[in-house]
């Protein structure tokens, strides 16, 4: 019994790493999503092109390949990364590319009349974006952002393959030390599922909070 509690501690440590990765990856993904998503609807051709190239590149190659690239190839061109840095970088850039399309879609789905109202009120492009368009678009983005965050959480399992001690890695450690497979893998499956449920619950309550006061505006 005592040894199982030790192994459980190991798995919980892994859970902390997974949570840490998910949070840091999400922050990077959010930043990239807004940069690239707004870049896609920019007036400037160069910005649009740059954003499209980023999105297509990171959506087009698999997260696994990107992670290996970040961890094994970048050091060869002089950019040494720890596993955690490589993990956050790959996860954030990859999911950010998917989320950028969500940002673009949400911005474009805000009604024409809102843009016209901005012009009528003599708001600058940035003012209109900041005070009129984004507050409405944010609400449209939120549910999909929740899904993206869950995808990111699931993708964190891949970092175990570059020797970062996350949940999946610790489960492998427990497997190799005890020879038992059912217990560690079932445990981490349940932990992952619980984390995914927490994310979707969090996003839903955030959505409710933000929708307050917008009842008349949105259908």
């Amino acid at each position, binding site marked *: 019994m005592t040894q199982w509690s030790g192994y459980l501690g190991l798995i919980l440590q892994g859970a902390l790493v997974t949570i840490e990765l998910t949070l840091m990856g999400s922050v990077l993904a959010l930043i990239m999503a807004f940069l690239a998503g707004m870049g896609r609807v920019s007036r400037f051709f160069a910005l649009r092109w740059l954003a499209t190239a980023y999105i297509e590149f990171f959506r087009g190659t698999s997260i696994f390949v990107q992670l290996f690239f970040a961890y*094994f190839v970048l050091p060869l061109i002089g950019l040494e990364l720890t596993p955690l840095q490589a993990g956050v970088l790959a996860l954030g850039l990859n999911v950010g590319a998917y989320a950028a399309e969500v940002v673009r879609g949400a911005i474009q789905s805000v009604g024409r009349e809102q843009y016209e109202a901005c012009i009528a009120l003599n708001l600058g492009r940035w003012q209109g974006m900041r005070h009129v368009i984004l507050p409405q678009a944010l609400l449209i983005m939120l549910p999909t952002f929740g899904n993206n965050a869950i995808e990111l959480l699931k993708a964190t399992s*891949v970092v175990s393959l570059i020797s970062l001690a996350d949940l999946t890695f610790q489960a492998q450690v427990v497997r190799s030390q005890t020879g038992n*497979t059912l217990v560690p893998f079932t445990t981490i*499956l349940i932990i992952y599922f619980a984390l995914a449920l927490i994310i979707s619950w969090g996003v839903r309550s955030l959505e409710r909070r933000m929708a307050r006061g917008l009842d008349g505006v949105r259908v």
Partner: protein
Amino acid sequence: MEWDWNFVWEIMPTLIQGVKITILATLLGSVLAAIVGLGIALARRSPNKALSRTVGFLAEFIRGTPLLVQLYFIFYVLPDFGILLPPLVAGVIGLGLHYGTYTAEVYRAGIDNVPRGQWEAAKACNLSATQTWTNIIIPQAIPPMIPALANYFIAMFKETPLLSAITVLELMNQAKSVANTYYRYIEPITLVGAFFLVISLFSVVLLRWLEHRYGKIER
């Protein structure tokens, strides 16, 4: 470290071996996902509450946990229960089950999109449940789903590198073994990335065409 074309040509045959397995796994996984998805979608519509709830929860669980851990589960845990699967079979089952839960949503939406009148007309013509499904509903529901299904199959293709973790000798694994033998990472990993990027750029074109050809969903 410099890019070396001679080395690229030297490792090309090995990588092509891997490409074959990658494509095979994607095709088999897609077929399985298409079947599993339909099964889940039909089970969730079943009047039997216990069946639809159980299948619904299982699908939710599979969708909320990482594919990598599911692959480990199939590959390492099932042998304890006497089910010993070759790596490729385990990988295809993992891919098929995981993406089956996604395609199930596509089927659900497709079936829901068949107008009510079609169901009523089938009833009015005195068709049995089986006849209604095979002759009326499925033929109308499938074509609008094709772009969304193809989208998931492309996503699955990008996840096949995960199979390397359960020792399937697909592209990523061949690249890793080449890299470890010659201790050169730049060429193999970059080539894998380039391969996935090229295929996904082509698949974007294919998707556009599919959407143009089939994706006329009336709103």
